[in-house]
């Protein structure tokens, strides 16, 4: 895997206007997505992970808007593009897979027509006949009998619909796939099948995938790298092994310890105090400090930056790992 950056988010701010004032759903967030990787973006509901995914496509709609920051797809600054240019990027360069595929598929269109449209959108020289043949081949590769492409979306099961969403993204030859909770509506066996498929396709098509999910187990299964988000900011980014086996940020630690693990006997679930903050009036300094068992005075006074903790690739936004408030990490048992 190369470490070439495909998509770069720099100092992104996204705000939603509400009656009670602006809610900063994404706050000064910077993140790189590297070519060929599956980056898992995890966090609890309301942490801004879906907003981030939408902002990356510039599909935030009022009352939300991007306040500032840069979005780079390779060497294109997406923030400078016109709406028309941007809609060319969507679908062609960046594909999206959502939680509920039924909302993304046209119920009046046959599956094959969705695929033919996508294939021909990318390459107008392909005849309808050739596109159809290609579509049949694609669904077969995804484990769906090719004669079923003449069915309508409602005749497909949830897992099959989600495969069609992937097929559409593949048909468009997108560089980046943003998958927002793609397996949340699926049952465990179908979810596992879908994750296997995703892994296989990544190999075959060199896909880059941003996998947005609340499911820590899913991230552990497929991600190469993980970004943990809390209250609009990144708490920690690390390669998947390091994140799970050498967790740094107190929030990530708490989160991972509160996930039931079917493989571990007599696991004591960690019970995190409090609830994620209200983003209309977020806590000062580090937004996690009111719930953090290791918080010191500095944590409520000043916001910690996302800095390298061990090695180059493991970053955490926590004062504990800075020079100013250095404490032995072992104390975070």
């Amino acid at each position, binding site marked *: 895997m190369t470490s070439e950056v495909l998509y770069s988010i720099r100092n992104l701010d996204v705000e939603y206007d509400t009656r009670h004032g602006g809610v900063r759903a994404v706050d000064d967030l910077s993140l790189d997505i590297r070519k060929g990787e599956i980056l898992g973006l995890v966090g*609890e*509901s309301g942490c801004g992970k879906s907003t981030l995914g939408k902002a990356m496509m510039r599909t935030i709609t009022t009352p939300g808007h991007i306040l500032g920051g840069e979005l780079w797809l390779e060497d294109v600054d997406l923030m400078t593009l016109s709406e028309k240019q941007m809609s060319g990027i969507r679908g062609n360069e960046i594909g999206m897979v959502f939680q509920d595929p039924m909302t993304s598929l046209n119920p009046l269109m046959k599956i094959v027509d969705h695929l033919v449209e996508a294939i021909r959108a990318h390459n107008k020289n392909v005849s309808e006949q050739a596109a159809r043949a290609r579509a049949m081949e694609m669904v077969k590769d995804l484990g769906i009998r090719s004669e079923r492409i003449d069915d309508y979306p409602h005749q497909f*099961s949830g*897992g*099959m619909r989600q495969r069609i969403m992937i097929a559409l993204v593949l048909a468009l030859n997108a560089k980046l796939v943003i998958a927002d909770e793609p397996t949340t509506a699926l*049952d*465990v*066996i*179908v*979810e*596992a*099948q879908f*994750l*296997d498929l995703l892994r296989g396709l990544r190999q075959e098509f060199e896909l880059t995938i941003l996998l947005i999910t*609340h*499911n*820590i*187990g*899913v*991230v*552990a*299964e497929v991600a190469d790298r993980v970004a943990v988000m809390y209250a609009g900011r990144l708490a920690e980014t690390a390669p*998947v*092994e390091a994140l*799970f*086996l050498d967790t740094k940020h107190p929030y990530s630690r*708490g*989160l*991972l310890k*509160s*996930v*039931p*693990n*079917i*493989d571990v006997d007599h*696991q004591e*679930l*960690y*019970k*995190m105090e409090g*609830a*994620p903050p209200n983003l209309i009036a977020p806590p000062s300094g580090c937004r996690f400090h009111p719930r953090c068992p290791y918080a010191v005075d500095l944590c409520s006074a000043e916001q910690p930056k996302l800095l390298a903790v061990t090695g180059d690739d493991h970053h955490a936004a926590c004062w504990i790992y800075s020079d100013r408030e250095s404490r032995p990490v072992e104390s975070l048992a």
Partner: protein
Amino acid sequence: MTDQEPLVKLEHVEKFFPVPTGFVANLRAGSEKPAVRAVDDVSFEIKRGEVLGLAGESGSGKSTVGRLVLRLLDPTAGKVFFDGVDLGTLKAEQMRQMRSRMQVVFQDPMASLNPRMSIGKAVEHPAQIHMPDLTRQQRRDEVYEIFSAVGLDPPKFFYDKFPHQISGGQRQRVVIARGLITRPDLIVADEPIAMADVSVQALLLDLMLRLKDEFDLTYLFITHDLATTKYICDRLAIMYLGRIVEIGSLQEVFTNPQHPYTRALLSAVPVPDPRHRRTAPLPRGEIPSPINPPAGCHFHPRCPIAQEGICDVEVPEFLAYKDETSHLISCHLRTGAYQNLDPDRQLA
């Protein structure tokens, strides 16, 4: 736990829902109308003070079983006993009184609460119906007590709050509180923590366990998430297409799963450890339609060990695995006459 009568007992319960068809199709079909076989010959018991987990994929019929236990639905066939009483024989008024002893917690607390009713009033409401002898003040005190028990502290602060003013986790606590106010014996919890965030799920599970001891409760815990059953259940039943395929103590089902479907299901659960690798192959395809379920064992078209001529023909009996009398499986190759065909046995 004493060796008394089980609190809940289901005997060969079936629930079929008719499939709406056109007028002409109705005439043609005669008496053979298509039906969704949501629950198909299900029998089990829940002892007092026990937590029985009921797990399965969507469409397996687990929620329908919950509704049958509460008699929110009448079974097509079979009997449901609550504390020794056949619920099917009760008249409406008797059933209404019985209901105060069984309560339900659903997945979505926002859908279970009236947005225009304060949460204090919402919890007080069942007390008004089922405990008419209490004075207003006594009822209010009951609510305060239950609020404290479920962690809505200070209770007076929460009494006048409306559902939208509190967090999702707190809302689910309100729903649990409302279930507890009539001091029921049984709580049917249908995906009670599925909507909550991970960090909140742990708190709710912990609360449910604590309340079970404090209020001498028995739970039917319905879930699609097998990992959470480990923290709360004493016994576990696995459902597939309307039938229970395996039931046993948590230990038996988790460490020694016998039904191929149970094994597949357990293996498919995502594990929060990047070093983990799956232990069993995934079954092919997806759960078929319950309108025309496969003949014989419902799982046979997806089963890695299915034997032609047996599994696709006969419905397997529900039998004890080896000498573990509490561990029952419905699989031709694991118990009963055909067990010598079991590939596991041949390997051994």
